[in-house]
């Protein structure tokens, strides 16, 4: 279980908290969407889930491990993988295949197993032809695929994705979104999926909507669409909803 219990977080130099009295529980194997407007607290929530930020109030735990306990940092990070919005800030290797291999190697996975995993991921995300290219020289959408492949190669228990498809075109977004759901099902990986695209959120079994640092809705997609207050807080005009290939209202 990944759990935030009444957490607060205020960035240095800011008066208003980014999240306040926010609680969220993510069970093993559960996949949920986190949606909200710009600056609503979505990214802060995702960083608290991943143990990148420590709550200033309340408690954040991953399988019972308190993320504020720095001695537990390596154990937390083995369980949780985090994808940031901006792909360019996350590369550590000179080629795509080295990038994907770096995670398993750092976790001590035997070389043969790591190679096999890298091959699977290259194939899975359509990156075979790009495997010798520097990741930083790829298009933004291709970079995002490399990062998703790198995270899944580590086989984390929890995957925290901060807008993982925002740099992808609608056709890729649909494809990558579908594959992510399939992978999470087959590997049993829990996914906290922050998104601006309502279409993506509606395809997941649970939606958590955030407004002004608080959870304003937590439930099934069908109930979300019936919750006029939550839709209003997110600035979504129900009459303008799009359900086309783009899969979103962004």
């Amino acid at each position: 279980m990944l759990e935030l219990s009444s957490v607060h977080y205020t960035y240095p130099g800011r008066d208003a908290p980014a999240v306040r009295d926010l609680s969220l529980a993510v069970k093993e194997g559960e996949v949920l969407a986190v949606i909200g407007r710009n600056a609503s607290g979505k990214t802060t929530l995702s960083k608290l889930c991943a143990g990148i930020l420590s709550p200033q109030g309340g408690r954040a735990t991953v399988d019972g491990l308190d993320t504020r306990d720095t001695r537990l940092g390596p154990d937390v990070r083995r369980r949780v993988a985090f994808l940031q919005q901006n792909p360019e800030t996350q590369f550590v290797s000179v080629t795509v295949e080295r990038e994907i291999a770096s995670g398993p190697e750092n976790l001590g996975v035997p070389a043969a197993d790591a190679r096999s995993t890298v091959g699977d991921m290259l194939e899975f995300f359509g990156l075979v032809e790009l495997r010798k290219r520097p990741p930083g020289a790829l298009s933004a959408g291709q970079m995002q695929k490399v990062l998703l492949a790198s995270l899944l190669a580590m086989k984390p228990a929890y995957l925290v994705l901060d807008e993982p498809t925002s740099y992808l075109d609608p056709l890729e977004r649909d494809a990558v979104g579908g594959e992510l759901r399939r992978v999470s099902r087959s590997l049993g990986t829990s996914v906290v999926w922050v998104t601006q695209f309502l279409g993506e959120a509606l395809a997941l079994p649970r939606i958590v909507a955030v407004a002004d640092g608080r959870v304003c809705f937590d439930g099934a997609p069908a109930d979300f669409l019936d919750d006029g207050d939550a839709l209003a807080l997110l600035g979504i005009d129900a009459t303008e909803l799009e359900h086309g290939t783009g899969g979103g209202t962004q």
Partner: protein
Amino acid sequence: MKGRLKRPGCPDGGAAARTMGAAELVLRGVGFSYDRGLPTEKAVLRSVSLRVRAGELVSVVGRTGSGKTTLGLIMAGLVRPQSGRVSVEGGTSDPASGQSFRSEAAGRLDVVMVFQVPESQFFEEDVFSEVAFGPSRLGLRGGELEARVRSSLERLGLDPARVSTRSPVRLSEGEKRNVAIASALACEPRFLILDEPTISLDWQASARLFSVLRRLADSGVSVVVLTHEVEKAVRHSDSAAVLAAGTLSAPGRLTAEEVYESWRDALERPVAPTR
């Protein structure tokens, strides 16, 4: 040191070129390949032509990796085409020559590009300085400069009193995007090129941005949006052109499904080399 920097998106070096009247940005037969001449050569643009008239809001819709960013860099004069020509007609700016796009009019630039990743164009320590950099290089000072920065931020829905002293890299992703666009607006360009401007913007922020772009176009600014967000592009633009398999369709009124159909067709057509 900073005074000699050539800021990405706000070309400022070299001799000032002059434009007059209702200029048009024209591309004729533009081609470009990465790793040209190497075994890894990858052609991305092949004989691309486009004419952007004053006051038009044109979208170029293409898939990830289709060459939209390369096309934008060429239009902005930041990358030279390997074949063909790009020029500002009705004026004397010549992007292909590497000359700057400083306008004859004081305090304006001819062509400004907003990059896809906001951080790649930030280097000032606070938002005010970031937005002020372009117009200050164009000679604005004091109250005039402050008013230009303030109005640029407000046009994007940013409260100057709240964000001016903050570091641009510490803003939310959506706020970063808006600061990057405000920095471009502060240069009051004749041609504004935006690379995937709606990434990280929520629904209302996207609608507000297109409303701002529409007003800019109505005031005579030519706006080119490079995007993969098909629905928004066809809804808000005067015309849309599809970039696929290295070629650009003629701009026109398209439906989203027509764009997706073009993209799917292009999957069957690899980009031919440019030479």
